[in-house]
């Protein structure tokens, strides 16, 4: 599914990535407010759903080759975070949905978990 479709589904604002959201294909997602857990468990190419707003969100996306970020609960990313995302070409969305609702809508639309279970 295209990121632009996900934007509609979540009534999300586009923070950065006008030219990217019609190109980026999303098949899986990872939702977490713990970056260490993302690093430990997420697989590449996932869409990252988080309430964190600091630049480390973008570093983590870069290290793991994730495809983009959705800030949930209406969180506004810090200016440095947006600047870094622009430099790295990482699309950013912001939704007022809480994490659970965000995950539910995506799952209902066929987006799968980046990892099914943690062993």
């Amino acid at each position, binding site marked *: 599914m295209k990121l632009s479709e996900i934007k509609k589904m979540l009534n999300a604002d586009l923070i950065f990535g006008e030219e990217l959201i019609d190109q980026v294909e999303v098949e899986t997602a990872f939702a977490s407010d713990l970056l260490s857990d993302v*690093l430990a468990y997420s697989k590449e190419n996932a869409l990252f759903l988080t309430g964190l707003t600091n630049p480390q969100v973008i570093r983590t996306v*870069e290290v793991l080759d994730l495809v983009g970020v959705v800030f949930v609960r209406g969180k506004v990313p810090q200016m440095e975070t947006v600047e870094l995302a622009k430099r790295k070409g990482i699309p950013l969305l912001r939704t007022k949905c809480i994490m659970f609702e965000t995950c539910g809508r995506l799952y209902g639309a066929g987006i799968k978990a980046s990892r099914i279970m943690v062993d």
Partner: protein
Amino acid sequence: MRPIQFYYIKGRDFFNAGRTSTTIKRHLREKEYPPGVIQRVAIIAYEAEINIVCYTDHGYFFLYFLDDRVRIIVKDRGQGIEDIDLAMQEGFSTASDEIRKLGFGAGMGLANIKKNADRLAIRSVPGVGTVLEIDVLTNSEGRSDSMGTTLREVMDRANLEFLTDGLDIDRELTGGYAGDLLSDVNANSSAGNVWVTVLTHPNVTAVAGLKELAGVIIAGGIRPGADFIEKAYSEKIPILFTEMNAFDVVAMLASLGVTGNS
């Protein structure tokens, strides 16, 4: 690109935390390592970098591109780790609220490094700092119980002359020390180190024995006498000899991933 890369990482610089790791990732891409290897090294480097930024004044990475592996040596000047076994447990963390607000401090860092490494060795002195030595094998995606560098590998690589046939040169080296002052080596070398020196006095073997060093490389081309070799056998300290100067020997050791203790 050179086979050894050096990176300095400043503590408490939360904005730039992760920059070094993404640089390393780019280098690995340029060298066309398999994607799985790049991913694992990047995650390891990032977790280690975050630890330096969160818990230390500063630290640095040495990155080695070796024949069959990528080796990262992480050294920091920080608070050190009191109990390494405890620190390795998932969920254990001493993070401050500031660190937790960033999304770290979940107690996954070291465990995550271990999970992605083929080999991890940790040395830490509380109040002084921590050294991590991490290998990721490049010839396979899988894990193995690989060993670090041995004196035999060093000997084979640089065509060193083995003067004490029969003594054990298959121990994994814990690092190296270079020096021509016995008191300095006595004070600062560590057990299992290889010692590089130009000295040929028999007391060299006494110090090496006392400090339980893995062996001595006599550099500079001045050959030790029979009394030296005899003493080496009685102390069970393997002796290697080379015409290379000490600086080149140390550079050669570094290219094999053998580092200092500091």
